[in-house]
């Protein structure tokens, strides 16, 4: 999709600098950014977390989060510099001329009001529409966005609607007044891959149909490749490189851009490890089921995991994969079936497992923020299992601690920090070190890289594979990310709604023929190349 005739400028950001208050000083979070956007054009803003993407996106609406201030520059919306206006004068632009689609529609819709009331509000109050006309338009937008029962959809409350539908409802809300510009702030990040496809298709459709200009903020390069015409790469609040999507995909100029692209192909070469299944089953589950109340979350699960092996459990949210991890760690008792560990029956509950057994099975969580006690130092966090399981104290413990820190590639000086003083990747390394401190045979890894930026994710995965090679530990690796599975798994289990739909070696799973669900799952993962979404749309039409 190319535009040969230059359409009028919708947005012009000129030399924008924004500062945020940290402790007692102001520091720049956006530094001299200039961008421009024409009618019908979609600009992708990419970068890692903290690069200033959202701040710029919000600045396009003349909006600053509390604790931030403009240090200089201009944001011209159809020629009007928003930043030159007082706050009250900027307000009329929002919702009518420029609209915003937030990352989590679930959080951004007010739970107290019906969807229709929220969607038509701006149009009725400031868009000059009657309530009836606004509702009519909303219903037609619902239909265009392929929402179910468009006539009745608006009567629901946000909590009665699924995440993907809510995200599309938010797109409808943004479209209500036919704005000149829509800012999409990571609109699909919180969604499962199969849902993401639907939302992407909808977004793509309305942008084309209504010819609005859009800023599309994301950290996912494959998504931006499907949506954007041009891409601006941000780092530390500054634009590193701006280029049309085709060029930036094919030939990124800036080293940082290149590095971003490079990590997208997870460079964890794990082929050699495929063979280290020793044949001895460390963990085996037979016809295992589990339920919450009347609801069966796991049905008839049977699988085995060998020593030193990586078993990837893949599925979307609600597939029961995390519950499976909790059953293995003894936090959730199964309702039926058996679990065996190293040849012996595995007691169902943590409280029934001897300490020696507890030591052998460790867990690493998705979010190191919640998995590490923010009030404890790294020394205490890692030191505790050393003391508990191995009775180490004093100098011996300290020595082992340092060893572990080096093992997870952390600076020993970090031992005195609290998790709040570490970056996301560092925190996850601490969590890994804590698990390793027990010297386990099996580590349940529950989505451990999904909260990390791509670069960091790659590093952590590479390190885990190294550790496996050196320590012979087995991983029960829960993830929704097909890329990760492809990169590290020896064997793969695909789950849907509490059942295993397919399992086998990595090669078996990724090679056709697939089970139908696996097929959908694999097909929903966006490809890096532009045009993937076009093909999907075409295939559906």
């Amino acid at each position: 999709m190319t535009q040969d005739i230059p359409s009028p400028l919708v947005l012009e950001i000129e030399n924008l600098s924004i500062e945020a208050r940290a402790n007692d000083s102001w520091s720049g979070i956006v530094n001299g950014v200039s961008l421009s956007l024409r009618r019908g054009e979609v600009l992708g803003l990419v970068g890692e977390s903290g690069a200033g993407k959202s701040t710029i996106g919000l600045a396009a609406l003349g909006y600053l989060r509390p604790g931030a201030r403009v240090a200089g520059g201009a944001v011209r919306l159809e020629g009007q510099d928003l930043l030159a206006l007082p706050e009250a004068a900027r307000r009329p632009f929002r919702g009518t001329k420029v609209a915003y689609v937030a990352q989590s529609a679930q959080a951004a819709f007010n739970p107290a009001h019906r969807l229709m009331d929220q969607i038509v509000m701006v149009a009725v109050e400031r868009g000059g529409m009657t309530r009836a006309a606004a509702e009519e338009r909303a219903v037609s937008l619902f239909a265009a966005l392929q929402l179910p029962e468009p006539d009745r959809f608006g009567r629901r409350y946000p909590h009665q609607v699924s995440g993907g539908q809510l995200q599309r409802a938010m797109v409808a809300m943004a479209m209500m007044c036919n704005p000149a510009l829509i800012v999409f702030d990571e609109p699909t990040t919180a969604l499962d891959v199969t849902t993401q496809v639907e939302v992407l298709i909808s977004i793509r459709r309305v942008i084309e149909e209504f010819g609005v200009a859009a800023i599309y903020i994301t950290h996912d390069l494959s998504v931006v490749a499907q949506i954007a015409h041009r891409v601006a790469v941000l780092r530390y609040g500054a634009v590193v490189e701006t280029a049309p999507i085709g060029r930036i995909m094919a030939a990124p100029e800036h080293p940082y851009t290149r590095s971003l692209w490079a990590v997208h192909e997870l460079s964890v070469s794990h082929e050699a490890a495929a063979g280290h299944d020793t044949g001895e089953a460390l963990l085996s589950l037979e016809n295992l089921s589990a339920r919450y109340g009347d609801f069966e979350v796991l049905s008839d699960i049977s699988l085995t995991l060998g020593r030193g092996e990586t078993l990837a459990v893949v599925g979307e949210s609600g597939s029961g994969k995390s519950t499976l991890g909790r059953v293995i760690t003894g936090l959730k008792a199964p309702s039926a079936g058996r679990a065996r560990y190293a040849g012996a029956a595995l007691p169902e509950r943590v409280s029934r497992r001897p300490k020696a057994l507890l030591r052998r099975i460790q867990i690493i969580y998705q979010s190191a923020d919640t998995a590490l006690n923010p009030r404890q130092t790294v020394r205490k966090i890692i030191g505790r299992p050393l003391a508990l399981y191995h009775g180490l104290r004093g100098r011996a413990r300290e020595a082992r601690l340092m060893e572990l820190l080096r093992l997870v590639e952390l600076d020993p000086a970090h031992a005195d920090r609290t998790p709040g003083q570490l970056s996301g990747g560092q925190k996850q390394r601490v969590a890994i070190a804590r698990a390793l401190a027990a010297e386990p045979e099996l580590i349940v890894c529950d989505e451990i890289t999904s909260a990390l930026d791509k670069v960091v994710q790659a590093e952590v995965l590479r390190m885990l594979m190294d550790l496996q090679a050196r320590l012979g530990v087995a991983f029960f690796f829960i993830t929704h990310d097909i890329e990760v599975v492809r990169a590290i798994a020896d064997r793969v289990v695909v789950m849907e709604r509490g059942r295993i739909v397919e399992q086998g070696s990595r090669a078996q799973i990724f090679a056709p023929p697939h089970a139908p669900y696996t097929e959908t799952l694999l097909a929903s993962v966006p490809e890096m190349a532009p045009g993937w979404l076009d093909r999907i749309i075409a295939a559906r039409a």
Partner: protein
Amino acid sequence: MNRTTHPILSMVLSRLGLGLLSLVIVSLVIFSAVSFLPGSYAAAILGQNATPEAVAAMERQLGLDQPWALRYASWLATAATGDLGMSFSGRPVVDVIGPRLANTLTLAAITAAIAVPLAIGLGIACARWRGRLIDRVLSTTTLASISVPEFFVAYVVMMIFAVKLQLLPSMAGIRNGMDFGEQLIRMILPILTLLLVILAHMLRNTRAAILSVMASPYVEMARLKGEPEARVVMRQALPNAIGPIASVVAINLAYLISGVVVIEVVFVYPGVGQAMIDAVRNRDVPVIQACALIFAAAYIGFNLLADILSIVSNPRLLHPR
């Protein structure tokens, strides 16, 4: 609309059940505590006329010679039928407490009618103009007023309006033969005192409840849709803050019924708080039990109302998927 009424109904029923359970626990705790109290009604009433025979005779008449478990069981049996029984003085408990409860409820109702809207209104204003002058002034003054002992407030109010200015009577005591106008005038000082005490608490909590909602993404979204700040507060934040506001209002209303003993003492207001203290002093068990039940029921009832209100205001709970 069976779907919409059902969850509330079942919640109300289960909460009522728990409330009744709490009432029974309260009555049991109070009853046993009273029977641990040294002395008895007979000794307390007969005073220096308490010869052992007279005490024994009276205890026999009142059934105090029975074991306490038996007494409790029979009390519970009568209470379960809604009959609060007879005071040890021979008058029905309802007659003993009734007029005082009416006084307490009048005072509470008038105070609440003024305090609740005022507190919520001002709390909203503080949240709307947070950090501005009105917010700072109200935050500081309310902080001061929750920090002051209520008898201090009562005395200051009394000194200014009754002793110095001689504008209002120092005694709030309502007596037979007073017309409602005079009653109202007499209640001004206690109402004023209570207002100063509870207004601050509710105002601060209203403000805090709204402000905590103000950090939500949907509030930011509303701003990004260009909604003016006042409407953001009223339409986006307030509906989601009703739960916590209702619960702090409930606590304060319960306080108005059960906790105003100090005010009753200072202004000589014949309310139910003094009735209970009087009853404790006299070991008049049926009256003590009735007062405790009234207080506990008020507390439980208002909290239940607050919970219902927060459910009604929360579509998530009102319209489950």
